[in-house]
């Protein structure tokens, strides 16, 4: 699978875009299986990098999603409420989870090559 080079990656499988959008990787959605529910953070919440801020539930299990950066939640992907399967279908685009106003990126974020190498 191809991990977009313009994104940064956490070892816990979240991606962070330049505009502060956050989602989970193709690899993560594949490991989770069919996503049936997404619990998103409240807009306006201040979060710290590494903090559990959302939950993605597949048929089998609930998985915490960690903030890849510190800052404020400024938007959430409301389409996921009715169509959680977008996380499986389009993890890097339509399946984004929330958007942050980043004050500081978390430590240890990787580029696409490093993330791909870690998860091959």
């Amino acid at each position, binding site marked *: 699978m191809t991990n977009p080079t313009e994104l940064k990656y956490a070892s816990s499988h979240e991606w962070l875009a330049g505009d502060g959008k956050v989602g989970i990787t193709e690899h993560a959605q594949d490991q989770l299986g069919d996503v049936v529910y997404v619990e998103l953070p409240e807009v306006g919440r201040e979060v710290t990098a590494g903090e559990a801020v959302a939950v993605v539930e597949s*048929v*089998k299990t609930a998985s915490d999603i960690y903030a890849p950066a510190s800052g404020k939640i400024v938007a959430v992907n409301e389409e996921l409420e009715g169509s959680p399967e977008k996380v499986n279908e389009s993890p890097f685009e339509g399946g984004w989870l929330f958007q942050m106003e980043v004050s500081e990126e978390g430590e240890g974020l990787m580029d696409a090559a490093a993330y791909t190498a870690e998860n091959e």
Partner: protein
Amino acid sequence: MDNQNLKKTPLHAAHLRSGARMVPFGGWDMPVQYAGLKAEHQAVRENVGMFDVSHMGQFRFSGAGALDFLQYVTPNDVSKLKPGRAHYNWLPNDQGGLVDDIFIYQAGEQEYLMVVNAGNIAKDWEHLQALAGDYDVQMTDESDQWVLIAVQGPKAAETLDPHTDADLIAAKRNSFFAGRLLDHDVFFARTGYTGEDGFEVFVKADEGEALWDALVTLGITPAGLGARDTLRLEAGFPLYGHEFGDNIHPLSSTYSWVVKDKPYLGRAKMDEAPRQKLIGLKLDKIPVREGYLVYQGAENVGQVTSGSTSPTLGHPIAMALVDANAADSEQFEVEVRGKRHPAERVEIPFYKK
């Protein structure tokens, strides 16, 4: 548990060839899914799928006292079986709980096969050995000798029938018989735990992999533990370690039909009315999982024992053990990550053919 210490069934390599994702389960390294849980679930509901259930245990009982022994250690009436028939049964302890829930197959005049849950093999063996001394019965643990493949789905009989000398179309539910399937000597049982028609196929361990591969070429969809769990949950079947256990009164479930009026180990405790009842819950969107607390008003009345989003129904379902005096209510709440969500009581099974 360390992955290196997990046991592998004789089909392990075949699972990897089929692209399985493996997970630890009851001490075994088992396939949780192949292509995808929903597709595997749907294959069993609408067509035909198969599961490796070789991790389950098989004990053989033979001798003049085999029937008397099994009558004493189980509450169902084993004397009603005859050669070639099987039934669902329990192994009660003497405290009103279950050591395990099991299937018993009568193989011959004084010969029975018991299939037990994978995680309970050692515990069941010890329990039964301790009780067998007073009876003229020989007990053999054949768990390593058999590969057990559960072929399940509405098209199970028609898919297998052209490839065997046995008459699968006419076979009765819960019947048990020998046959030849795709060049292998097997035993068929028209049993399963998915709520669908199907067969459980017993084949010698060293022939299991070849048979599995041959069944794949017939177009039978390999299905993993994930689909097995959502299928049995939709069908409302209790699972040991969730709805049944050493400290759960088994009559809290709807399975009172198992218990017949006869003497058996632990009957006095089993006769006491259960203080909890197993109910079905339906939620709007949020999946609820085992261990989540169930509320009525401010009061915690029980907890979820199994829960998932039902692939067939499209909404979350759960079984929960709640206080018997609260069980007749229509509305409950389930706490998910600190917030309570409404849950409506619904009949078990959630899905019926």
